[in-house]
């Protein structure tokens, strides 16, 4: 085995070059898939890039997906720093959306900016509440959060279907969704801003929630690395025994970490309800909660890594739909496979080429130093 002196490896090699090589490899393997499916991989790449960057609406779609992945990625990352595998982002986002809607519809007599603040708070509180129950069971009874959170995804889905069919359904319509929120409460969208500048563009779901996602990233960074809470959460995550020794309560921190995680997942509801649908539609979390796990792992659970990872998945979602539209042999599931390959290479096989690449650069730097 080759051992590399870690301290001599430049940061940009481990944090930029290695992920980039993994990504290129993943794309190469994905290209093979597309080739086997009978389409031209170069053309597919061109379509992905065109679809996600090539025109303004496409790029807006990319950023819209990125927004959702940032929320769910951050949610997973926060819990993970306390070594809790919160795979319940999907359900927490769903219930978070309920919070957004209930707050917005019931406080519609208040000024709109205040309703927005309350709705964001509602998303956080509802998402956190949904995470609290598994957290409590984990902290007091040792019921593993992986099991309980995934069960809570199903419970959330069933509960929401029940509510959307029997309780809060828009009775004038056939589908399982609520009535729309008053139009003044809708989040300003990207095309509204463009219109202000006198540029007319077509519809895209991108809205000011994107800024909320950036703010949430800063919040998570500050929380985890700059506050006593983050410090204690990490201590519990890395070494529970030591935490107890230092007087840090694992019980309290498990619950705090899970609730913050659930709250962040709930923010996805803000994007979807206030920004896009303006009502609750059945199944709106659409798997973002699960993809967020991959985003967080790829981004090494750090906001600075989560942002590009979320953006990459945004490109794949948006570019992928462009490809499936233009290439009849490529189905939507093909792109699920592509995502899988990327997760495989940048997550599971992350260390496949790391030693060789790091060695290469260390040797080169040594040569330079000698010369």
């Amino acid at each position, binding site marked *: 085995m080759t051992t590399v*002196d870690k301290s001599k490896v430049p940061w940009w090699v481990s944090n930029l070059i290695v992920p980039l090589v993994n990504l290129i490899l993943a794309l190469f393997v994905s290209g093979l898939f597309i080739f086997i499916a009978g389409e031209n991989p170069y053309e597919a790449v061109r379509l992905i890039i065109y679809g996600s960057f090539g025109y303004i609406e496409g790029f807006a779609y990319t950023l819209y997906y990125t927004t959702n992945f940032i929320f769910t990625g951050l949610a997973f990352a926060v819990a993970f720093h306390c070594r809790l595998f919160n795979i319940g982002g999907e359900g927490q986002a769903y219930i978070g959306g309920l919070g957004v809607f209930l707050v917005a519809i019931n406080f519609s007599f208040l000024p709109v900016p205040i309703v927005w603040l309350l709705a964001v708070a509602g998303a956080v509180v509802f998402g956190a509440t949904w995470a609290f129950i598994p957290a409590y069971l984990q902290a007091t009874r040792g019921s593993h959060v992986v099991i309980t959170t995934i069960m809570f995804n199903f419970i959330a889905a069933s509960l929401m279907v029940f509510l959307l069919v029997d309780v809060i359904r828009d009775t004038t319509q056939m589908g399982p969704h609520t009535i729309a929120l008053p139009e003044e409460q809708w989040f300003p969208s990207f095309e509204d801003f463009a219109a202000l500048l006198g540029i007319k563009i077509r519809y895209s779901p991108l809205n000011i929630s994107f800024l909320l996602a950036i703010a949430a990233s800063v919040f998570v960074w500050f929380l985890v690395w700059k506050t*006593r809470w983050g410090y204690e959460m990490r201590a519990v995550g890395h070494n529970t025994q030591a935490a107890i020794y230092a*007087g840090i309560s694992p019980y309290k921190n498990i619950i705090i970490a899970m609730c913050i995680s659930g709250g962040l997942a709930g923010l996805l509801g803000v994007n979807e309800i206030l920004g896009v649908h303006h009502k609750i539609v059945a199944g709106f979390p659409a798997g973002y909660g699960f993809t967020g796990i991959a985003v967080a792992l790829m981004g090494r659970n750090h906001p600075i890594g989560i942002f590009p990872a979320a953006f990459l998945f945004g490109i794949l979602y948006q570019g992928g739909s462009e490809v499936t539209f233009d290439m009849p042999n490529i189905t939507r599931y093909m792109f699920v496979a592509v995502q899988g390959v990327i997760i495989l290479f940048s997550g599971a096989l992350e260390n496949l080429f790391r030693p060789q690449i790091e060695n290469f650069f260390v040797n080169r730097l040594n040569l330079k130093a000698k010369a």
Partner: protein
Amino acid sequence: MVSPILELTNINKSFGHVHANKNINLTINKGTIHGIIGENGAGKSTLMSIVFGLYQANSGTIKVNGNEINLRSPKDSIINGIGMVHQHFMLVENFTVLENIILGFEGELVFGKNLEKAKKDLKNLCDTYKLNIDLNSTISDLSVGFRQRVEILKSLYRGAEILILDEPTGVLTPQEVDELFKILRSLKEEGKTIVLITHKLIEIMDLTSEVSVMRQGEMVGHTKTENTNKEQLAEMMVGRSVLLRLDKSEVKTGDVIFKVENLTVKDDLDVTRVKKVNLEIRSGEILGLAGVTGNGQTELLEALSGIRKVESGEIYLEGKKVSDNQNFLDPRELKEKGLAHVPEDRQRMGLVTDFKAYENLIFGYHDQQPFSKSSILNHRDIISHSKKIMEEYDVRPQSPNLITSNFSGGNQQKIILSRELNEKPKVLLVGQPTRGVDIGAIEFIHQRLIDMRDKGAAILLVSVELDEVLSLSDRIVVMFDGKIVGEKENKNVTDRELGLLMAGVV
């Protein structure tokens, strides 16, 4: 005539920039017990891992019985008759002794003939070397001493002629050590060669016929054991003469500031581990608590520091009751009241090894000013504080941003000690302060503890190293089976007396 069975020539091994073995030459003669001694981090274990095929040397040659061999994996070593008993046993807990030994050497799909033959061979080996092992007992039912014997038996069964033992006595009771030494001697009589890696001088003097000393990755001396003595070996190990006995001033004790009455504590499995213990510690004294590992010391320390619940009895700090069955202070509240705790197991409890050094230097005090204000960590103050105390306690390297697991054992211990002593505690609970710490650091740590005592702290020292208890304590209590079985002033007590108490004989 003695003939070399194992010859190492110019062995070099580096891990990154750490040169763990530098041009090592070593000759081990057939049928001897050869000691390899050195501080922690001197490169002993690395060298033996190379011989056992776990690591590959960067350069150098290895000869067994005069033939140069190429060791790429432990399998190659086993073929060449080299066996190793590791510090941490490599046994499957829920398998029987027999199943563990034949693991990987089953030789047949459905157990039958080979198994019967293995049983017979193993019985013969057990008889020859008086190992006294029941092949059908499950590993989890066996004591540490017996598990070690299983490891020895495993190596012998696989045809080991050279048996390497890495710090074999670290986990054993004195009685088990005696048994082990008997076995090792009988192995030697049957013509096996034994390599004993240790940092305990007394074992070298007792057991070996030849000894090699390592220091900082180099072989600094070979000698016949009969031509040397403990002091000389210690000097070779650290490269200067060490004080094995500490200079310490007469004790000037003050009031009783820490008192334990009728304390009973249960462990996680609901077994009573501490039984009606009474203790009193005065300011300015070190109370040594001696005892073989597992006699309730761990649970006692955990209860006193607020980690474990008190079953019955009371704990008093400066005359005020701090803990009983109903009300108890948590570790942080006790810290605020001036009780510091250096836990027995630094990696499991004292440190978060994945944290950076500065994060560990405030661990447990992180919510206090100036480290944090309204829940926000004050990075600048933490770093400057860390730099200061790392210098004061000679933690090397002095980099607060380094991940803690990259520090050596001794320096990790200094990180904990500096953190706990820096708060000038009134009561200090110390568990195994020098376990796995090299001699230079041991001296430093002992001196710091004495300084604390002289400044008026009440110190409870829990250690399984009898030498340590004897050299530091003013008063010694012995714990056996959860009870205090004896108390002695540390003036005319002998280690023999204490040994008998520790064994529960008296």
